[in-house]
């Protein structure tokens, strides 16, 4: 139980006042009697029993109860029944986004969240199964359903706030995916600086436990805080984009600085290239406004670019910096195995950043990023990115049968990146191979039940294949051909597009284009190295919890990528959970504030007042 207006409890002082009034100024009605001499002795004897008499005074009792109830109602109590108490299955979803790095009275919100989660765990029934999950930039299960409280406490201890924005939508989907049904209590522990995603089916028993300045215990309805870190408004870099000029000589930089304070602020924005300051500007940013500036940085000046608000003492430090990095320039190594295909060779020779090797049979001694098999037999146990045109892998998903002539129309699957912009339905196909396709394969184009174009992913194999040879169709003559090949190379994504400079948001998955089987060392911004030996390329790296530049090193390559917050939503520390309205969110808000019970107390006080009047009236 907490009180939104604790000052209302001062009304409790009226209780002793009422008792004193009854003690010393009991209202006595006049009653004339023929003689009082028989009463007088009784009166003397009775006056020595004042207190028991008071206790029997029903009016006094009713008035004391009424005053107490009125006082409690005025204090606006909120029943903070621990949302998860009593549930058999509880999911505790902890917001570990960047805003949880802020603090209240010097106590980081993440510490408060951990404590709150401990309270919920401690109050839960002993047999309740509890799941811990994070609702930060990359929602994940911290500990799956368990009754082991010690384990849960241990997991909580290691949980830290990330540098990224919250991703509540993904977190709620994760909860759904974990089998949380309508009976499962889901508690979101957060600082309140987030809003519920739209168009998401909220768990029926979703509630929130808000910590910090906007928690129900600390929130004053008449003076609601403007942000979750009261008194220390936030200023942030909300965007940092670099775009290469057409001639490739320089980058055009776009940076956005937002001021979430209620007063205008003067900030110094510094741009650096490889830690060398190349621009420093003092900006006046109005309250609640965003200033956008542009600059030009010579391309030769470096490979790591940063923007920083210098000397910015505010609530959140992580959004005062943003980074961008140029990826490595390694070309895509394509091995084309063909008896001769003018169209393919021509296309690949002009495709940017491709190092083409044309052979007549597969050369597995040479490393490649993409292997294209053009109507040639495929060896067994192929791994990596393979494009099979009119041929089938011996241990692949397609078991070839007879050859048939196509006499039906081609059906193309919509909304797949490989067929995006490709008019396969207009392609003329003469012969194709009829066979059995592994159900795990994804058919992109078909003639009736027979696949014509499909993709397949196995452990170490990523395959794009056609069941017709290029030479048995007119596809190579159509404008869709280069589009299709471009889409295939993009989808296989063996390397980063050359020359791009940028960053990913915290928690995003970064595709690393490293040779499969080669050890790669990824050094985090704080210097911690992580070692992997990926089997496919690209290798998807997901541990991007810190902002800064990640160095990627291998025996035959080196690269880097940048991670930044640059997220206006996360930098906005206003308690949106309380101010949003409508739909399912309203239900959530009600739960967030607890169950207000002042109406019931006020009603009870009125009933006691009425009872007091009735008793008084009957005695008079």
């Amino acid at each position, binding site marked *: 139980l907490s009180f939104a207006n604790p000052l209302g409890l001062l009304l409790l002082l009226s209780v002793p006042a009422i008792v004193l009034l009854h003690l010393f100024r*009991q209202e006595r*009605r006049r009653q004339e009697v*023929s003689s009082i001499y028989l009463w007088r002795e009784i009166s003397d004897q009775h*006056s020595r029993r004042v207190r028991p008499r008071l206790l029997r005074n029903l009016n006094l009792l009713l008035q004391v109860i009424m005053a107490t109830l009125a006082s409690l109602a005025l204090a606006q109590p909120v029943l903070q029944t621990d949302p998860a108490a009593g549930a058999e299955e509880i999911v505790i979803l902890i917001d570990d986004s960047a805003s949880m790095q802020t603090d209240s009275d010097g106590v980081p919100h993440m510490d408060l969240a951990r404590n709150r989660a401990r309270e919920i765990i401690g109050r839960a029934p002993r047999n309740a199964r509890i799941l811990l999950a994070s609702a930060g930039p990359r929602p994940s299960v911290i500990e799956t359903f368990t009754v082991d409280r010690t384990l849960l406490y241990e997991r909580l201890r290691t949980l830290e706030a990330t540098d990224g924005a919250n991703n509540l939508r993904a977190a709620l989907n994760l909860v759904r995916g974990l089998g949380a049904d309508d009976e499962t209590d889901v508690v979101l522990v957060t600082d309140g600086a987030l809003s519920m995603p739209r168009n998401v089916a909220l768990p029926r028993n979703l509630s929130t436990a808000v910590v910090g300045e906007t928690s129900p215990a600390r929130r004053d309805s008449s003076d609601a805080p403007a942000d979750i870190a009261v008194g220390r408004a936030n200023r942030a870099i909300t965007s940092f984009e670099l775009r290469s000029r057409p001639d490739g000589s320089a980058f055009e930089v776009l940076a956005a600085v937002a001021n979430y304070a209620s007063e205008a602020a003067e900030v110094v924005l510094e741009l650096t290239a490889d830690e060398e300051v190349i621009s420093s500007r003092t900006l006046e940013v109005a309250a609640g406004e965003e200033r956008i500036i542009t600059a030009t940085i010579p391309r030769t000046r470096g490979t790591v670019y940063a923007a920083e608000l210098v000397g910015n003492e505010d609530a959140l430090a992580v959004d005062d910096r943003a980074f961008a990095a140029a990826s490595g320039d390694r070309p895509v190594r394509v091995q084309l195995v063909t008896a001769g295909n003018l169209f393919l060779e021509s296309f690949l020779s002009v495709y940017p950043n491709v190092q083409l090797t044309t052979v007549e049979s597969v050369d597995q001694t040479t490393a490649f990023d993409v292997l294209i098999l053009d109507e040639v037999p495929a060896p067994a146990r192929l791994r990596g990115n393979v494009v099979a045109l009119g041929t089938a892998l011996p241990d692949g998903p397609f078991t070839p049968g007879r050859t048939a002539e196509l006499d039906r129309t081609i059906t193309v699957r919509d909304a797949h990146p490989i067929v995006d912009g490709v008019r396969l339905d207009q392609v003329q196909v003469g012969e194709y191979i009829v066979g059995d396709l592994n159900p795990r394969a994804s058919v992109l184009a078909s003639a009736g039940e027979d696949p014509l174009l499909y993709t397949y992913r196995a452990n170490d194999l990523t395959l794009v294949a056609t069941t017709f040879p290029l030479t048995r169709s007119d596809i190579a003559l159509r404008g869709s051909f280069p589009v299709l090949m471009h889409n295939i190379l993009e989808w296989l994504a063996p390397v980063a597009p050359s020359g791009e400079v940028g960053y990913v948001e915290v928690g995003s998955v970064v595709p690393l284009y490293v040779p499969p089987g080669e050890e790669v060392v990824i050094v985090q911004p704080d210097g911690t190295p992580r070692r992997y030996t990926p089997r496919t390329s690209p290798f998807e790296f997901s541990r991007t919890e810190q902002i800064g530049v990640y160095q990627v090193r291998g025996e035959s390559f080196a690269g880097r990528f940048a991670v930044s917050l640059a997220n206006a939503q996360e930098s906005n520390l206003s308690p949106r959970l309380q101010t949003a309205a409508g739909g399912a969110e309203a239900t959530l808000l009600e739960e967030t504030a607890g169950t207000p019970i002042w109406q019931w107390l006020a009603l009870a006080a009125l009933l006691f007042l009425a009872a007091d009047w009735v008793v008084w009236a009957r005695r008079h």
Partner: protein
Amino acid sequence: VATTLLDEEFLRKLEQLSLLARKIRSGVSRGENISIHRGASLEFSDYRLYQPGDDFRYLDWNIYSRLNRLFVKVFTAEENLTVHILVDTSRSMAFGNPTKLWYAGRLAAALGYLAVNNLDRVGVSAFADGIEHSLQPVRQTSHVFSIFDYIASLKPSGVTDFNRTLRDYSLRTKRPGLAILITDLLDPGGYTEGLRALLYRRFDIMLIQVMDEDELSPRFKGPFRLIDGETEDETELNVEPETVAEYQRRLGAFFGEIEEFCLSHDIEYLRTSNRIPFEDVVFSYLRRGVFVH
């Protein structure tokens, strides 16, 4: 009191009581209940044989001369009874519904009517802290109208001083007789001295204590400032069930003391409430032989 005392129903009840009194008188054996207050005149009643010790003055010589046997004349002493009806008119008698004074007035009127019919001298006095004014005892049938008028004019006032009133009355009365006291006896000063004073003057005393039903069983509850109807003294009290029980215990003890005193001093005592029909009270007295002499 004046407007309702002499209504038709009341008078009809008085007539019934009068007949009832005669009937009772006729059933009483001759020679019994002869009053100690003998009058001057004697009325011949019968003859009986002479007994040794009889007064020779009552021997009938004429019969002796004719029958040669001694007979003595037997006379009935003519009662010359004076009935003093004293009605308490203190302010405490103004309580009740009907008021105790109204009830006392009806009792006084009824008893006075019966006494007049019995050819007694009947005087009526109102008292509080003293005798206010009196209707002197008169032996006359028409006196009953004076009695009614007097009683109808009574108004409650003053503070009871029972002892002083009766002491004064006993001293100033030349012709003692039957004193009928109608009062609530609620006098902190007590009542025994006054009654003793009357007894000393050889009064026969009939004491009728009139109480209001609310005095016997108080119905008010809660915190009260109780005000004495006569003295206007106050006392504060929370009237709770146990308080009422204590009051009733004390009232019972008070009544017990009165009964004990009256029994030990040969005083006819009757306690009644203003809710009991007055004729029942009068009838009860008639059954006891009052006015039969």
